[in-house]
């Protein structure tokens, strides 16, 4: 994608609109907000893909996970509140640089990296290595961090910090768009000549409130620091969060195990100090290519015993693939409770296993994609009418209208060719009077048919046209036979595909 013009598109008012463009597309004059048709007129070779909100969310989620090496408290920044109210072009023009963002509450974490600046430098450097351009800022308020990350002049590179007490001074020269305002408000402000946050700070608050609503003042205050806006709803506690970095990436299973052991020791030590145990622990491994591997150990009761935890995890880490190597590992006690005096046995007998728990267990053991059930697929071709699909997922649609003729109870897969003699003609609507299947000779006494099933022409691999017959032999055995002919109607073969009860 990097070497040719590329854009993501969204649908708006049943028109395709560019949502985001890469650098090459921008060079040829394409901008987010353009109609796709116009963009193609300008640059016919444009490659596009529809914006996949779910996939984008998944990618953001990935990055967020990746960021958890810097702080256990991360969240995905909400998209602009009023996306969709204005035109895409307007939104884009007013939204300022960069769309998505990730919040990190770095309180109590920066010392792990050697200070705020070192942490930001490391963060932007590493995201860049992953192939994303990023800008980062750290400030004492959420609003200021948002504004600075997007609008600060690039004097230090891609990141900046506003030291305590200097936020106001950093914000004054920034445009009003840096306040997370609706495009409508931004337009109104510009129309009366108010361009920067500094311009706003000069005016009496009452004049602003009456014109632009409380939101403007809230955003202003949230940036300057008059109100606090927590990133996560959890009250602040020193996180039960431990981490290890490796000078050389590790990869062997023993090393991973040893790492886990070390981290568990550290964590349990800290939990013991506070008299709490973990009910959910997250072990995260960071590969050099930016991907992560995460394992969760859940317990019904709080645990603070590194041996038990190690045992719990050991099953889970067996299959970890280190890829190009693991450079970092963290362990986070993500849900904790005060330790109860008794420890209970973790692994016991499940007495009442009903079917659904069996399924749950199977799914847990083999993975959701490996436990299958048959489903009806709407296809006229019998062997395509049933498929196996993962058992988890949307419920079975059992109310499919029965639009097909009778089907046998048992289907042979694949159909078995039989020896039969008949005339070759499109107009012959009779089954063979006698046929040999699995060395047995069957004499047909009754028949119904044909049911002619034409090939699914849109498929790459195809059948010929088939004429199906239900036949009954002298012994009362009933078969589902078909004759397959090629397009020229010259060759025909007979098969048995099913047996009726």
């Amino acid at each position, binding site marked *: 994608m990097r070497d040719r013009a590329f854009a993501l*598109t969204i649908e708006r008012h049943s028109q*395709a609109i560019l949502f985001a463009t890469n650098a090459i597309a921008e060079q*040829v*004059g394409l901008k987010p907000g353009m109609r*796709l*048709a*116009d963009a*193609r007129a*300008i*640059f*016919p*070779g444009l*490659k*596009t*893909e*529809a914006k996949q909100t779910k996939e984008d969310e998944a990618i953001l989620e990935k990055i967020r996970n990746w960021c958890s090496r810097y702080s256990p408290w991360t969240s995905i920044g909400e998209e602009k509140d009023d996306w969709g109210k204005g035109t895409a*072009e*307007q939104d884009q*023009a*007013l939204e300022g640089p960069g769309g998505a963002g990730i919040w990190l509450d770095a309180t109590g974490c920066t010392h792990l990296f050697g200070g705020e600046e070192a942490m930001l430098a490391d963060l932007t450097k590493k995201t860049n290595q992953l192939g994303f351009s990023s800008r980062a800022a750290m400030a004492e308020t959420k609003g200021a961090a948002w504004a600075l990350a997007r609008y600060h002049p690039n004097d230090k590179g891609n990141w900046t910090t506003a030291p305590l007490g200097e936020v106001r001074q950093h914000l004054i020269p920034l*445009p009003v*768009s840096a306040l997370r305002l609706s495009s409508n408000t*931004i*337009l*109104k402000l*510009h*129309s*009366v*000549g*108010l*361009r920067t946050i500094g311009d706003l700070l000069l*005016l*009496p608050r*009452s*004049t602003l409130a*009456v*014109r632009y609503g409380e939101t403007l003042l809230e955003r202003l205050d949230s940036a300057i620091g008059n109100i606090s806006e927590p990133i996560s709803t959890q009250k602040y506690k020193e996180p039960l969060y431990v981490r290890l970095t490796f000078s050389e990436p590790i990869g062997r299973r023993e090393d991973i195990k040893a790492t886990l052991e070390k981290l568990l020791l550290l964590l349990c030590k800290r939990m013991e100090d506070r008299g709490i145990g973990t009910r959910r622990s997250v072990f995260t491994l960071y590969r050099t290519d930016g991907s992560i591997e995460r394992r969760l150990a859940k317990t019904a009761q709080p645990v603070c015993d590194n041996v038990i935890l190690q045992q719990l995890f050991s099953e889970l880490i067996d299959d970890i693939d280190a890829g190009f190597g693991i450079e970092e590992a963290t362990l986070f006690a993500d849900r904790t409770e005060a330790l109860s005096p008794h420890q209970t046995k973790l692994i016991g007998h499940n007495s009442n296993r009903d079917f659904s728990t069996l399924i749950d267990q199977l799914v847990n053991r083999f993975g959701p994609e490996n436990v299958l059930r048959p489903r009806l*697929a*709407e296809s*006229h071709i019998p062997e395509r009418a049933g498929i196996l699909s993962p058992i988890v997922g949307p419920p079975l649609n059992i109310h*499919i*209208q*029965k*639009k*097909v*003729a*009778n089907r046998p109870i048992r289907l042979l897969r694949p159909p078995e060719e039989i020896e039969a003699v008949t005339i070759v003609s499109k*107009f012959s*609507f009779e089954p063979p009077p006698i046929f040999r299947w699995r060395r047995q000779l069957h004499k047909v006494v009754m028949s*119904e*048919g*044909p*049911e*002619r*099933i*034409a090939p699914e*022409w*849109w498929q790459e691999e195809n059948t010929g*046209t088939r*004429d199906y017959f239900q036949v009954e032999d002298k012994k009362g055995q009933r078969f589902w036979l078909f004759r397959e002919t090629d397009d020229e109607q010259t060759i025909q073969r007979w098969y048995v595909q099913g047996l009726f009860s």
Partner: protein
Amino acid sequence: MSSYAELQTTSNFSFLTGASHPEELVRRASELKHKAIAITDHNTLAGVVRAHLAARETGIQLIVGARLNFTDSTSLLCLPTNHQAYSRLTRLITLGRRRAPKGHCYLSLTDFLEAQEDQIAITLTPNEINQKLSPTFLSQLLEAMDDRCYLAIQNLLQGGDKKRISALTEMASKFGVKTVVTNDVHYHEPARRKLQDTLTAIRNRCKVDNAGYQLFTNAERHLKSASEMAALFPHHAEATSRTVEIAARCSFSLEQLSYEYPDDEAPTDITPQKYLTQLTWKGATWRYPDGIPNKVRNQIVHELRLIDELSYANYFLTVHDIVQYARRQGILCQGRGSAANSSVCYCLGITAVDPTHIDLLFERFISAERGEPPDIDVDFEHERREEVIQYIYQKYGRERAGLAATVIHYRGRSAMREVARAMGLSRDVEDALSSAAVIKRLSKRADFSLTEIGLDEKDPRVIRTLKLAKEISGFPRHLSQHVGGFVITRKRLDDLVPIANAAMDGRTTIEWDKNDLDTLGFLKIDVLGLGMLSCIRKAFGLLQMHHQRAIDLATVPSEDPEVYNMLSQADSVGVFQVESRAQMTMLPRLKPRTFYDLVIEVAIVRPGPIQGDMVHPYLRRRNGEEKVTFPSDALREVLGKTYGVPLFQEQAMKIAIVAAGFTPTEADGLRRAMATFRRMGSIQKYRNKMIQGMINRGYEKSFSERCFKQIEGFGDYGFPESHAASFALLVYVSAWLKFHYPAIFTCALLNSQPMGFYAPAQIVRDAREHGVTVRPPDVNYSHWDCTIEKTSEGLDALRLGLRQIKGFRKELAKRLVTAREHGNGRPFFDLDDFARRSQLSRNALQQLAEADTFESMGLSRRSALWSVQSITPNQGPLFEKTGAGIIEPKITLPIMGMGEEISHDYRTIHLSLKKHPLALLRKSMLSTHAIPSEQLTDAKSGTALSVAGLIINRQRPSTANGVIFITLEDETGNANIIIWPDVFERYRKETLNSKLLLVRGELQREGPVIHVVARQLIDMTSELYSLTESPIGSELSKQYPSRDFH
């Protein structure tokens, strides 16, 4: 040998269901030697006229019928046996369609039973294999219809057929109803199965892959020969041959329909012809108050005699009545079309073109030979056409008048798009395939490869898509309403054709389109809307109000040399038809001096003459640079008025007759083939016949080919002399208004927007260049419409109306004006006063402030905005007295620079009266060496130079081989830019995406016409944005309007 007639066919007029044209079904049935074929589309007769035409050609019997799908029971085939039964069917469908929204038809079995007389009903079994036919349904039908009721049996090889057929046969014999064989035909040949599956997927809005059981199991629903059918029903020979018996019982043919003109107009004691004669002579004394000239008198007598011979009196009277209605309502109208420019129509007030001025031969347009109704289109003011339409509905009733349908066909783009979707191609590939360029290249260039646009040509899905899209092209997709073609009948229209609701409220349409009506010889009156008529009527009104001058289309002083001088200088912004850039380059070459010159001017800049390469020969001959010769004496008569060069559609047709030996009917067939050739493609036959015919008669091959090319060019935009004459009158009248009353003309033009070639910015600018004072919209002076005020010298000045403000609504403007008038003329003295009296919402106030309309109160745009933003909506006087929340600290806002003012002007009223943006930018653009466009007139041809300006329109005429024309506007005038395709390819982005463009190129001069041929284009749009001095300048100033590619 068995015989068979297919009685159940679904054509592609059962939209997205049938996969063959009705014509294809009929032709195939004829090839298969069927005794007859019934077209039974679902609740519609939309395809039967086409089938009828094909049946007439092939000689097979067509049974007109319909499959009726009921809301409360299973479907049946309804085949009328005679004319009365047919009318019952059309009324039945009308009933079902009129009670349903567009595209649907709600009928119950009871409705059918009331219309069952003389119908044959063939009961269909439910589609689903396991559903059974309801016995009550069958007994109800039997009771009413007795031996006219049948039960259909089908062997579609779906499995279980034997069982089902025997069960049905058993049921039939139990009830005493006869069975009849049908094949539920959905296409004429098995190869169409793929297309039928695709249509099914499109109908269900899914991919073919996911259509599942919606698709038919096999390809059996095609027309089969009698022996094939017999093989399918070895034990039901009598049910097979019964199809032929049924066919024999159906004696109705569309030939039996006879159209009759409405006869409402003539009083009972007098024949229509006599009445028409009376009205005509009365009109003649009105048109010629100083006495009817002898020439006219003879002409009228002659025309009336012809009308009498052909019994067209009622037709003329009907048009006359509609025109009279418009006249009574003060709606301006003007007739055009073959019969419209006759002396009779002039006397009846149908046209305002005095036929003595143009000397058109009546017979040329109304001929006994063609046996076709005369054709009169009437244009009405576009804003008031609906009144006329409703008058017609009201006068004749819904059952006697209906709009013709227009069949919307799948064309390249829509075909490609929907097929691609059904094939499951990604949006990206779909877009690429359906881009106009690709479709054009696919159809024109055999060697065009999809790899050029980055697609994999070998991808089987892409290959299938291309193939199917080609097949589906020309398929009807849905019915829409004709722009204004009315069918009015003497008796009930719904006895002839089903009538349905249109998508628009208050409109009803018939199921047949223009070609169908032609086939059956039905009269159509086109009631069309024309923006320029609205403009002219408004200008006449203003003229009456401000200058006490009462004139109408016919009394505008004719042949004013100053008007022709103006037009000859291409000074024609706003003038009807001749304001386009192509016309503007033609005007100084043609230098019109007389009305007939305008007729030619209108007709010459059209695809026909251009494709036929007739323009330059005409101009050379007219300017005396080439000898006027005629290819033959016979053609001297045809081409005399146009110096031997065919320009009009009539001339081209006449050439086919005189020079290529066509009969008039053949010539007419040729014309029609041209209009519809894309659908059917029978053009080659005519081409050979015409060119060979001309060569045989001694004409040069190249001339013959040019003549044919010209006819091809007429195909889509046929432009006959009679239409040109009517349009020329509007050209003259609008030019006359523009010359003599520029302020009034501009005012009327702005009040009739949107219409025409130019945006208000250019119209206003042109007016100011002609010395008109234009004043900005202001809450103390403006109305909704633009108005005429007086300058201190007593000249007309133009006050822009509130309608110019983007997004401002008419009701709000009315409320504002009422508030102003209620104050006894007391102006609004400040914003609070204004807000209180007008009671407008904060949003509306904001719009007014943004548009800088408070100037008369001494409020700048920015201070008005600041104040408005704090106003609480609907603040009552109570608050004013208490002063709650009103006193605010005084603050100083930054002053708005001129650049930003202009940007805001463009953003809010699409133009600026303050300054042209280029005037401000000129200094900062010095380094570009762009010269003001006014200096172009002094430059020599071939000079290399640069110009810069706002793009005000872009055009890529289909006749110009990919050349793009751009008009730039700067503070001194316009510059016309020509961009050749190779330059365009290099500068696509700049061409298509700039608002402000710098062009480097060469000056090209052709007589008085100046172009700049571009070599390099530079996008300067960011300069424009910088005017606002705002970081979101691009947002604040994106409203620089350009009219593109229309």
